[in-house]
């Protein structure tokens, strides 16, 4: 499945994510999670997903610690003033299941693409050229601008720059300098783009969707609908 086109992957990710987000009961949650795991395995993205799961895991941990204590009326256990409540526990489990499944699916489908293919996929989905060009140029120059900002901040420290909140105005100065340079650079960039005939946008033209892509999209749509239907009937 690794050859699925970027455009198809975007559609797959959206369809599955919204399908999972629509789940309201705990009953289909195991099915949803199993589906998420199989998508990860099919796209061979296990390692990436595990790496990117850390932050969502922390969030989920926070929720499961807090929600059961503050939400719901059915008390399951009481230790002093602290009561563990059923509804809160259910809500926490539901949110955690949905969150982790959606993140797993999006990471498996999209984070494994090169960022530039991703933008080409967006262009193919008829996202306006203005936005995809913004995305491409931002991706292209993000590293450089980050490095420049980091260097400037080292230069500031080397000249005894203040620490703590008193450094805030200095940060504003660094940002202002960076913006001024960005402006100058954009003028050169525009000349370069025009000289090479910039007209219709930077992203590559559409590549057609193959039969395999259509099959994947149809499959995902059916799965998502199935999940929602099961959720509403069970």
């Amino acid at each position, binding site marked *: 499945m690794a050859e699925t086109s970027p455009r198809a992957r975007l559609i797959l*990710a*959206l369809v599955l*994510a*919204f399908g999972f*987000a629509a789940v309201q009961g705990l009953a289909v949650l195991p099915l949803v999670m199993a589906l998420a795991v199989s998508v990860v395995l099919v796209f061979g993205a296990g390692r990436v997903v595990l790496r*990117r799961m850390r932050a*969502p895991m922390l*969030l989920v941990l926070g929720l499961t610690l807090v929600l059961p204590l*503050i*939400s*719901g*009326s059915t008390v399951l256990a009481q230790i002093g003033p602290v009561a563990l409540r059923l*509804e*809160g526990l259910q*809500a926490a489990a539901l*949110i*955690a299941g949905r*969150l*982790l*499944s*959606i*993140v797993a699916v*999006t*990471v498996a489908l*999209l*984070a494994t693409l090169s*960022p530039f293919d*991703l933008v080409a996929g*967006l262009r193919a989905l008829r996202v*306006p050229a*203005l*936005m995809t060009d*913004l*995305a491409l*140029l*931002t*991706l292209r*120059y*993000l590293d450089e*601008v*980050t490095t420049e*900002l*980091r260097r400037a901040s080292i230069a500031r420290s080397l000249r005894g720059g203040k620490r*703590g*909140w008193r*450094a*805030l105005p200095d*940060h*504003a*100065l660094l*940002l*202002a300098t*960076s*913006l*001024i340079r960005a*402006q100058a650079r*954009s*003028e050169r*960039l*525009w000349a370069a783009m025009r000289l090479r005939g910039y007209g219709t946008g930077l992203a590559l033209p559409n590549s057609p969707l193959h039969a395999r892509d259509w099959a994947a999209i149809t499959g995902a749509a059916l799965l998502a609908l199935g999940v929602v239907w099961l959720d509403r009937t069970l």
Partner: protein
Amino acid sequence: MHLPDGIVPVEMALAGYACSAGLVAVALHRIKARPDPQAEIPRVAMLTTVFFAASLAAVPVPPTTVHLMLAGLMGVMLGWFAVPAIMVGLFLQAVLFGHGGLTTLGLNGLILCLPALLALRLWQQIGGRWPDLAAFGAGAGAVVVAIAIFAAIVLTGLPAELDARAERAAVQIFALAHLPLALAEGVIVLVLLRVLRRIEPRLLPDG
């Protein structure tokens, strides 16, 4: 302050997409009406890159460090271009860095775009007469409005059984925790726009 996936009900997420799409359509319509919108793409892209890079770097606000949001500044400096720029930034963040989420892209767009447009409005209204006040207001105000929208969305979206007292307490803690961020952004936007007005007024829209 990005809303992750899976927290709010799917209806809200869909409504968020619809509202954001509407906002983008309005913004693109406004942009198309400008004399040569294509020629502005490199400028908007380069400034957006700087905003993006700056919001990835941690800024000290004791006792911790925070990440700037910069929605107000984007509104002031990019005008209506801020809307597509913010949406692009959010998409890239969600997919590349795992901040925010795919289903909540629309809602997150509202959380940042509305404050940006309000900041722009504020700057256009009083930036000429009281530039420092307008700048601080744009910076700090955008954070406050974003927090308000964020809190409203979360409260509407969370399970109904949540008891009212806990709810209010959580909102208060959340808002208080972000007060330093609002102040920090206010100061940064104030200093920054002062510098730009002094040495590179070309970069500012007619305030």
